[in-house]
């Protein structure tokens, strides 16, 4: 989603862009990356538009500013809404992608999309995720023609980033407000609260919507540490991806594998919960996970 499907008239002049995120910390709902861009020559006017760090503004003021900037023809904007299902799935993949990488990729995607539109980006201001200098080098290597300024609290330092933070925050709030739950179970409530793990309303919602088998509705980011506190109430689920990890990590589990290899069967390997070893079976059956069951 964004302002324009086509290149604005001022887009072929040198432009600046700000990038900021909303909903990185919450345990539920989407994470939104937003960007705002304009001609470098418009910078002075931009700083008179009362954009401030979106967190310091009241919700109504943010909504108002967003509606204003949408009608401003000297400003372009775009958002990348990352679904909580995607966040969880990526962070729980066999080859896990951490939140910093997901964030970086989203910001990179916004820059690329704007460049593809034909906008001549010369300077991009980014609120940092992780180490600012490493992040700046990463971005500069991908886009050598652009000067990147990566800083902590960039949203309160640069008006163009403040604007981006408003775009991101309003989009995130609306997405959560309008969220259509996947689940069709009865008594599903929509009082999510802010989504921050510390918010009493969010805590109460999580308590009321936990499920012994399914965990939570897919609005929840299962990869968040907050969810672990609820795992004692739910059924154990063992994944092959996790079993592999246990085996390749700790030394203790490596030793267990060796012991079983030389015939010590007393130590049960985790993966045996998922599939039997296939020892002694013909290769044809092993490869097809088939086993003759004589005692049942």
């Amino acid at each position, binding site marked *: 989603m964004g302002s324009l499907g086509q290149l604005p008239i001022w887009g072929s002049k040198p432009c600046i862009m700000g990038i900021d995120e909303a909903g990185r910390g919450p345990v539920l709902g989407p994470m939104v990356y937003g960007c705002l861009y304009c001609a470098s020559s418009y910078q002075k006017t931009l700083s008179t538009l009362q954009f401030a760090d979106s967190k310091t503004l009241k919700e109504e003021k943010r909504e108002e500013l967003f509606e204003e900037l949408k009608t401003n023809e000297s400003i372009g904007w775009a958002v990348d809404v990352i679904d909580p299902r995607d966040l*969880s799935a990526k962070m729980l*993949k066999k080859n896990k992608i951490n939140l910093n990488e997901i964030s970086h990729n989203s910001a990179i995607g916004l820059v690329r999309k704007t460049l593809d539109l034909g906008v001549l980006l010369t300077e991009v201001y980014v609120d940092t995720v992780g180490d600012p200098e490493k992040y700046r080098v990463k971005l500069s290597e991908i886009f050598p023609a652009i000067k990147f300024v990566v800083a902590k609290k960039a949203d309160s330092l640069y008006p163009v980033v403040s604007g981006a933070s408003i775009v991101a925050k309003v989009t995130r709030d609306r997405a959560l407000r309008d969220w259509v739950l*996947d*689940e069709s179970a009865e008594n599903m409530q929509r009082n999510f609260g802010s989504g921050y793990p510390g918010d009493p309303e969010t805590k109460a919602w999580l308590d009321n919507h936990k499920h012994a088998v399914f965990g939570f509705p897919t609005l929840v980011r299962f990869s968040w540490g907050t969810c672990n506190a609820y795992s004692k109430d739910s*059924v154990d689920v063992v994944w092959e991806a996790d079993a592999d990890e246990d085996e390749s990590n700790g030394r203790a589990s490596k030793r267990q594998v060796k012991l079983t290899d030389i015939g010590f069967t007393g130590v049960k390997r985790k993966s045996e919960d998922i599939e039997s070893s296939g020892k002694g079976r013909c290769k044809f059956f092993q490869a*097809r*996970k088939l086993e003759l069951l*004589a005692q*049942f």
Partner: protein
Amino acid sequence: MERSNNGISGTIDLNGSIPPSMAVDLTGKVHQLPCCIKFNGPSDVSHYFKPKSTGVIVDGLSVEEAYFRGRKLQGTTVAIPHGYSGFVLGKKMSDAKSKRSKEDSSCWETKAKFQNITLWNHDSLPSENDASLRAFHLFSVATALHQPVSVEDLEAASIDQELEL
């Protein structure tokens, strides 16, 4: 099926106490997940587990996606090959008449039937090389092994052998 002495213990009664036509049909509702859920019992699956078609086709298999416990699953629904059926088995109900069957834990009977199954992978697209799909290869092997040999087959085989010699 009668209990034999050749190391096999346990019986399966595919007809069970209910006539086959009355057996619960679970076609379209049987899923094989790439994880072990340490729970046996009913759960509101249809309210929480929502497979969606992706429109993607791999190896002629139409790909579906779903989420479980925050993991993305990719799967495909395959028909049980013609002439075969899927069965959900349960311990045979012990009736009052035979006290013995109460302790007998190895008598199984059909609780439900199904004609397709959805096989799910974590993180990888379904493929004809997936072990679960390849398990169906057994059916053609079994047919080849158990089909009575006809006179023509024997003749053809001996002609082949002679030609090789």
